[in-house]
C-alpha cells in the first residue's frame, strides 16, 4: 500500500500524534511547542486539499481499519462532503491558532497589571490563584493563559476531523466525545468567573446530549444489529413494520442530539453565554463546532432517510424546517438585543446555523449546494468577527466590547474598516459571499412548498442583521466622545492579521464563486445519491 492509500486516516492520526507529542513536550521551550503545533495545523491543509482532489471525481475513499470488511470492521469514509468540511476546519484552525499565538491576551495566569480590558460587564479580575509568575512572559498571549492549550487544540482537531471522516455511528459518538472533551478544556482555558459558569452549563447539557446519543445508538443497534452507517441505511430500509415506531423514535432522538450540537432552537440557549465568555481564538475555532451538528444531520439522514421505502423517509420534514426558521429568527432577534459585541457575534452564530439548516431542510440538491457554499463563508465570517471583537474590546479600555459610546479607539480607521468588511460578510450583503449564498438559497426555495416562509424569514432576518450590525458599528466607531483618560491599547498587526486573512478567504469565496459553487453542487449531487456511498462502503458484499 502506498501512502496515498492511507490518506483518509492521516487527518485523524496527525493531530492525535501531535497532541500526544505536545503533552510529552509540556516542559519544552514554548517556541518549540508553538512550532510543532503550527506545523501540524499547517500540515492539515495539504492533507485536506489532497482529499478534496482525490474525492473530486466523485469517488469515495473507504479506509478499513485493520482491513476488516465493512459491516464488521470500522471504516473511515472520505467523500466530497467530508473533504470540504476538513478543508474548512483546517483553514479556520490555522488562523485561530495564529491569533492565539500572536495576539495579546489579558494574561489571566501571568497576572499582568493592566485593567481588565476586553472583558465584559461584571467580569472581575480572576483571583490570583494560578501559580503567579509561572509563565509570566513579556506579553501574555492566549496560549499561555493556562496550561496545555496546544494539546487541547490538537485534540480538538482530532475530534473534528474524525467526526467528519467516520463511517460508523458509534465512532461518530466517540469522536463527538473527543471533540467535546477538548472543547470543555479550551472553553475554560484561562479561567474566570463568567467562563466557569457558562462552561458548567455547556458541559452538563452536552453530557445529557451524549447520554441521549447512546440511547439512540443502542436502540438502532438493537433493531438492526449494525452501526455502520451504510449498512444501517440498507437494514433500516428493510425494517419490518412492527419495528417502525422504534426506529423512528431512535432516529428522532438522534436528531435531537445533533440539533443540540448544532444549537437548533429550542436547544440553542447554551450557546450565546458559552461563546461570548470564552477566549477569542477558542470562540473562533468553535465557529465550526455547531457545523459539526449540521454536518451530522446531513450525513446521517441523507443515508438513513433517503428515497427508498423505509420507515424513516420524510421523518425530519415536520421538524427541521420550522426549527431552522425559528433558530434563524431567534438568532437575529438576539443580535438586535445584545449588549456586548461578543454576545452579538454569538447570536450571529445561532442565526447562521439557522440559515444553514434552512438549506438542509429544503433538501433539494440546489438547496444543499447553497448551504454547502454558505457553510465556509459563515464559519470564516463569524470567526473573523470573534477575533476582531477581541481587538476592539482591548482597544476601548474599561468599556470593553459593551455597546456604549466612549473615546475613539486607537487605529479606529483600520479596525473600523475591518469591522465594516466583516459585518458586510456576516449580514450577507453584496459584494461578499454571504450575499451569493443567500441568493442561491432563495433561488433553491422557489420550488419548495415553504417558499413564503423561507423568503419571508430569510429576508426579514437579513434586514435585522444589517440593522443590528450597523448600529453596533456606529456606536463603536462613530459616536465617539470624550478624551482618553487612560492609555488605550492599540491593536497590534499580529492580532489583526488573522482577521485580514479570514476576510481574504471570504473574498476568495467570491472571486472563485464559479468553481466553488460548482463544487458545492457536486457535493450536493453526491449527498442526494447515497447509493454510491453505500456501494463504496459495502463493496462487493452485496
Amino acid at each position, binding site marked *: 500500500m502506498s501512502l496515498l492509500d492511507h490518506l483518509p486516516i492521516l487527518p485523524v492520526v496527525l493531530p492525535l500524534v501531535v497532541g500526544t507529542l505536545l503533552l510529552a513536550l509540556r516542559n519544552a521551550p514554548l517556541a518549540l511547542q508553538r512550532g510543532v503545533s503550527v506545523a501540524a495545523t499547517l500540515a492539515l491543509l495539504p492533507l485536506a486539499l489532497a482529499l478534496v482532489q482525490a474525492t473530486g471525481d466523485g469517488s469515495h475513499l473507504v479506509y478499513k481499519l485493520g482491513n476488516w470488511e465493512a459491516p464488521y470492521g470500522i471504516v473511515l469514509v472520505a467523500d466530497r462532503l467530508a473533504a470540504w468540511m476538513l478543508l474548512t476546519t483546517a483553514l479556520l484552525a490555522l488562523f485561530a491558532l495564529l491569533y492565539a499565538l500572536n495576539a495579546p491576551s489579558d494574561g489571566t495566569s501571568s497576572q499582568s497589571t493592566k485593567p481588565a480590558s476586553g472583558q465584559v460587564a461584571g467580569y472581575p479580575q480572576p483571583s490570583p490563584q494560578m501559580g503567579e509568575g509561572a509563565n509570566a512572559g513579556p506579553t501574555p498571549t492566549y496560549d499561555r493563559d493556562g496550561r496545555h492549550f496546544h494539546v487541547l487544540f490538537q485534540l480538538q482537531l482530532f475530534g473534528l476531523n474524525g467526526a467528519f471522516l467516520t463511517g460508523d455511528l458509534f465512532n461518530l459518538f466517540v469522536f463527538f466525545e473527543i471533540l467535546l472533551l477538548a472543547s470543555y478544556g479550551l472553553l475554560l482555558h484561562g479561567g474566570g468567573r463568567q467562563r466557569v459558569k457558562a462552561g458548567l452549563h455547556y458541559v452538563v447539557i452536552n453530557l445529557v446530549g451524549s*447520554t441521549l446519543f447512546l440511547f439512540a445508538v*443502542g436502540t438502532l*443497534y*438493537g433493531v438492526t*444489529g449494525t452501526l455502520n452507517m451504510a449498512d444501517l441505511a440498507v437494514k433500516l430500509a428493510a425494517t419490518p413494520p412492527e419495528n417502525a415506531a422504534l426506529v423512528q423514535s431512535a432516529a428522532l432522538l438522534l436528531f435531537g442530539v445533533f440539533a443540540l450540537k448544532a444549537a437548533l432552537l429550542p436547544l440553542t440557549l447554551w450557546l450565546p453565554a458559552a461563546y461570548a465568555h470564552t477566549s477569542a481564538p477558542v470562540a473562533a475555532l468553535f465557529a465550526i463546532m455547531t457545523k459539526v451538528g449540521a454536518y451530522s444531520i446531513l450525513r446521517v439522514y441523507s443515508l438513513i432517510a433517503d428515497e427508498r421505502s423505509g420507515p424513516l423517509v420524510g421523518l425530519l420534514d415536520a421538524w427541521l424546517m420550522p426549527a431552522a426558521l425559528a433558530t434563524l429568527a431567534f438568532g437575529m432577534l438576539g443580535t438586535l438585543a445584545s449588549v456586548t459585541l461578543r454576545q452579538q457575534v454569538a447570536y450571529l452564530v445561532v442565526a447562521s446555523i439557522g440559515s444553514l439548516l434552512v438549506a438542509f431542510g429544503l433538501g433539494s440538491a440546489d438547496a444543499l449546494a447553497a448551504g454547502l457554499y454558505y457553510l465556509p463563508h459563515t464559519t470564516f465570517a463569524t470567526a473573523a468577527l470573534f477575533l476582531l471583537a477581541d481587538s476592539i474590546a482591548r482597544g476601548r479600555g474599561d468599556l470593553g466590547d459593551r455597546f456604549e459610546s466612549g473615546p475613539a479607539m486607537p487605529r479606529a480607521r483600520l479596525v473600523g474598516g475591518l469591522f465594516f468588511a466583516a459585518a458586510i460578510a456576516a449580514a450577507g450583503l453584496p459584494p461578499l459571499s454571504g450575499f451569493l449564498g443567500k441568493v442561491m438559497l432563495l433561488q433553491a426555495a422557489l420550488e419548495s412548498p415553504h417558499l413564503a416562509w423561507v423568503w419571508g424569514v430569510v429576508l426579514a432576518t437579513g434586514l435585522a442583521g444589517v440593522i443590528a450590525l450597523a448600529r453596533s458599528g456606529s456606536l463603536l466607531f462613530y459616536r465617539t466622545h470624550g478624551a482618553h483618560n487612560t492609555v488605550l491599547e492599540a491593536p497590534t498587526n499580529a492580532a489583526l492579521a488573522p482577521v485580514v486573512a479570514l476576510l481574504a478567504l471570504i473574498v476568495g469565496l467570491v472571486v472563485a464563486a464559479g468553481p466553488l459553487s460548482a463544487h458545492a453542487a457536486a457535493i450536493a449531487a453526491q449527498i442526494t445519491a447515497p447509493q454510491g456511498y453505500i456501494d463504496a462502503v459495502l463493496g462487493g458484499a452485496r
Partner: protein
Amino acid sequence: MEALIALVIGVLTAGGVFLALRGQTFPVVLGLTLMSYAVNLFLFVMGRLAIGVPPVISEAAAGYTDPLPQALVLTAIVISFGMTAFVIVLALKARAELGNDHVDGLEHEEDRRA
C-alpha cells in the same frame, strides 16, 4: 428478567433526569452519573439477554451472546467515567469561583436562611 432490567433502566433514568434538573451542582452530577449507568445497562441489553452461552461462536455451542454491545458498553463506561471526573472537578471549580454551588451561580434565599 427482561421486565426487571427494563424497570431498572427506567428507574435509573427517571432518577437521573430528576436529579439533573435540580438547582445545585452536586445533585446534577449525581443525576448525570445515574443516567450514564442507565444508558450503559441499556446498551448492554441491546445485544439481548442470553444466559450461560459463550460470546464467540464455536462449533459446539448451541447459541452465542452478541459481543459487540459489550465492547460498546466498555467504551461508554470509560468515556462516562472520564466525563464524570471532569464534571466533578468543574463543579468544585465553579463552587470556588462563584462562591456557591448553584448552577446559575446566584445566591438563593434558602442559603441565607440556612
